[in-house]
């Protein structure tokens, strides 16, 4: 074990997988200078595996999907979630459908991982602040992961590289320098498994990515008031760990879904629907979503209105308690 930043942990995953698999390659627009410099260590260890691409998001995504179809696992670094729609066809239509089309015909499937930075909070404005997971979660054939902690980032990314399906990995812009103890060597955190990061009995906070850290802050404040919040980090959105979500809410009877998405059409809404359909009898209060506003995201001081804070989560919890 050693303490590692989130960025270094992800780079470690890629470096170790490249050590192991001579066919694993990466393409991205600015690996040496780009968003979060996430993969720098891996690039220094395996410079020949890193293709620096032109500013051609459509072709870059297609490159990854096409190479994957031909047996090469490929990491496509799209830099920003906001740029992914430039390659929407390649992701939602070409990559997502291909295993279904092959129907077992292709022994190496379609092993492509798209990585992009997402999230609000560094004043980057309307074209650099999106959270788009809901779009990708909606498409059958894609898997979606959003690790909140460095140890999960390394293990999940390794699992994503090995999965054989197209996987989208969103990394929040505020997580790059966060640290925790990370195991040495290769390991996998399986896709589709949520983790309880704080146990509690009074309310379940269901979240993913950076907002999980804010949930933990809120839970600490709530504990001082005698309210014990359980914090469930989904880690993977698709496939969703439905059992973990339902079990926790059956236990506590109250659910707040905390996500940095715009409320309308959010994946938080999907989880609300799941709870209404499956655990209605256990609910002591309606499910509440703590999300961000349904407008484009302004920069500078106004952006503060969009950031998820412990206060907003606590307000949401109070609603479930009838306050």
């Amino acid at each position, binding site marked *: 074990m050693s303490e590692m930043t989130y960025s270094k942990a992800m780079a470690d995953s890629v470096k170790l997988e490249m050590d192991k698999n001579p066919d694993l390659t990466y393409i991205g627009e600015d690996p040496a200078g780009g968003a979060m410099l996430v993969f720098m260590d891996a690039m220094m260890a395996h410079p020949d595996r890193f293709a620096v691409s032109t500013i051609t998001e459509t072709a870059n995504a*297609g490159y990854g999907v096409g190479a994957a179809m031909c047996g090469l696992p490929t990491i496509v670094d799209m830099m920003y979630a906001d740029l992914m729609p430039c390659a929407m066809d390649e992701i939602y239509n070409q990559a997502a459908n291909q295993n279904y089309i092959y129907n077992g015909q292709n022994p190496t499937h379609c092993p492509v991982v798209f990585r992009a930075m997402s999230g609000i909070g560094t004043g980057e404005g309307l074209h650099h602040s999106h959270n788009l997971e809901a779009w990708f979660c909606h498409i059958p054939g894609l898997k979606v992961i959003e690790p909140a902690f460095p140890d999960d980032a390394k293990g999940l990314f390794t699992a994503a590289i090995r999965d054989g399906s197209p996987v989208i990995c969103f990394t929040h812009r505020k997580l790059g320098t966060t640290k925790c103890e990370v195991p040495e060597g290769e390991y996998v955190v399986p896709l589709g498994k949520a983790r309880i990061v704080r146990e509690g009995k009074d309310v379940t906070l269901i979240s993913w990515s950076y907002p999980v850290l804010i949930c933990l802050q809120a839970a600490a404040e709530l504990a001082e008031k005698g309210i014990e919040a359980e914090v469930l980090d989904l880690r993977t959105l698709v496939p969703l760990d439905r059992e973990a979500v339902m079990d926790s809410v059956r236990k506590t009877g109250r659910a707040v879904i905390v996500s940095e998405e715009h409320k309308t059409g959010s994946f938080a809404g999907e989880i609300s629907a799941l709870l209404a359909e499956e655990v209605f009898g256990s609910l002591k209060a309606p499910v509440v979503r703590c999300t961000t506003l349904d407008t484009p995201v302004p920069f500078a001081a106004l952006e503060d209105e969009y950031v998820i804070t412990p206060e907003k989560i606590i307000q949401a919890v109070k609603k479930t308690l009838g306050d």
Partner: protein
Amino acid sequence: MSLSKEQKRKMYKSLVLVRKFEEKMRECFLANKIPGFVHPYLGEEAVAVGVCSALIEGDKVFTHHRGTGHALALGCDPNRVMAEIFGKKDGLNGGRVGQMHLTDVAKGLVASNGIVGGAAPLSVGGAFACKHKKQGNLAIAFCGDGGSNRGTVHEALVVASVKKLPLIMVVENNLIQGANRFADMCNTETIACRAAGYGIPGVTVDGNDPEAVYEAVCQAAERARSGEGPSIIECLTWRMDGHYIGDTGFGKLPGENEEWQKKDPIKLYSEKLIAGKIATQAELDAMDAEAAEVVEAAEAFADNSPFPDKSVITNNVYAC
């Protein structure tokens, strides 16, 4: 690269197989045996045969919605192609995807596409995979004159030219895109002239002459396989049928089909083979008859194959 007598005869066999298959597909569609839509390749056979004859094992092909001819020219089993078009369980893809999405990974047909211009970005990855594996292979992307206008094709050629990837962009210019005329949709006389913008070679050839297509592909393939990068080959041809079967000839002018009938690739090639003493009329007739039998058998195979059971609907959404 000059063709042997045997190779030329093989080309003819492939041309008539595609022709007979396309005619049968039309017949079956009009007899309500085929669900959805089909996009016929009738009249364009020489492009598929010319290109695929120049490929070697391990080459990767990415095609479009009108790709049945490519599948057959690559050697895909006509039974299984027909069954897939019919939506039957024994089809190449289990009967779940149909004519626009045929694949046969073992034969090099990596992907077919319902999105016009969709093959280009994928083919860049295929070309990269070929380069990485260092076995001298290349990738082919097929697009039409319509598809060539998409940004996907531009970006693919940017990446392939900058990275010197082993890619050949084959533009099947059949002069009509949907119901629109090529001349109205392109500001230049040819599409191949765009190659200069990427610093790569681009040629325009007679797409109804399989040997002309073959020659052009061989040259581009040598360039690609030796690490010099991509090329554009524009093949001028004409689709004798509609954009889809049932289309009443949108965009075509009166008499155009008849004019192009005189340049029918099979008619011209059979005349060439006879004149060059590569085959006799009787031998060509025998090849025609053999192709007709293969296609009849394909129809019967597809007829006899059952529809897939509902239980397979959720299979293979993911790799695991």
